[in-house]
């Protein structure tokens, strides 16, 4: 019988003291991070959607795309930063559970792509 193997970095992260500490956290700490994750997501998604729709010619037509980008960029980046940091905490707290999930890996690829687009 063969055991599932993971990349060395994932193995190392899963066995690190940090991952152990996060994993042993109080359930309400998990709840807090999930809540922060959702709030960051709402802020990043809502603001980027308004810009994306404007680029398509919909929504906030009273303003130009450049103006919308200038106004909303700080909130978009703040939301994305909050979502990424809280998401990293949640991932480190349960590395192997998430890594084993194919949907999570799809999410990771999409997330890296969209974060690079924002830069």
């Amino acid at each position, binding site marked *: 019988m063969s055991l599932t193997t993971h990349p060395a970095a994932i193995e190392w992260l899963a066995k690190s003291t940090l991952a152990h500490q996060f994993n042993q956290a109080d*359930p*309400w700490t*998990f*709840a807090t991070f*999930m*809540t922060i994750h*959702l*709030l960051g*997501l*709402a*802020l990043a*998604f*809502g*603001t980027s*959607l*308004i810009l994306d*729709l404007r680029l398509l010619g919909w*929504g*906030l*037509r*009273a*303003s130009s795309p450049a*103006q919308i980008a200038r*106004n*909303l960029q700080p*909130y978009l980046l703040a939301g994305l930063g909050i979502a990424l940091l809280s998401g990293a905490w949640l991932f480190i707290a349960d590395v192997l559970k998430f890594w084993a999930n194919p949907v999570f890996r799809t999410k990771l690829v999409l997330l890296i792509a969209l974060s690079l687009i924002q830069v």
Partner: protein
Amino acid sequence: MPLGDFFNQVATLPISLVLGESLNLFSALDVIHIVGVLLLAGSIAVVDLRLLGVIFSDIGLDAIQRQLLPLTIAGALLVFPSGIGLFLPQAGKIWLNPLLQAKVALLLLAGLNVGYWHYNYSRHAEWSSAAALPWQARLAGASSLVLWAATIIAGRLIAFYI
């Protein structure tokens, strides 16, 4: 009829049973609910920030409100039916969850805030194009941001209260 009996009956409605027994349907409602929250809360937050005078001060409030309303409505059409769908199969137990009760109360307050703001706004035509808005508008924006954020927080925490 006591409230508990009422919610027990709600949980045994045919639609509640269908939703409760279907794994995929319930998960789908979960995803629809979150996407709806992102649309609803995100578009409302932009209007709130305009009320506070933080962004888009060069664009009239009337244009911002009119052009973002379709997004808010789309979010509401996703979030409310899916939320009711998630509630139905669990109605018998979940109505006792203090975080669900807090969420319902916060939703009512957020709704009252929207109603009170539009009543106020309708009586002040000069606000629709003003760059800096009076304290009533800034208070409406700030309380809306706080109430919707608190609604999301309470909603997310429902699952952690066992």
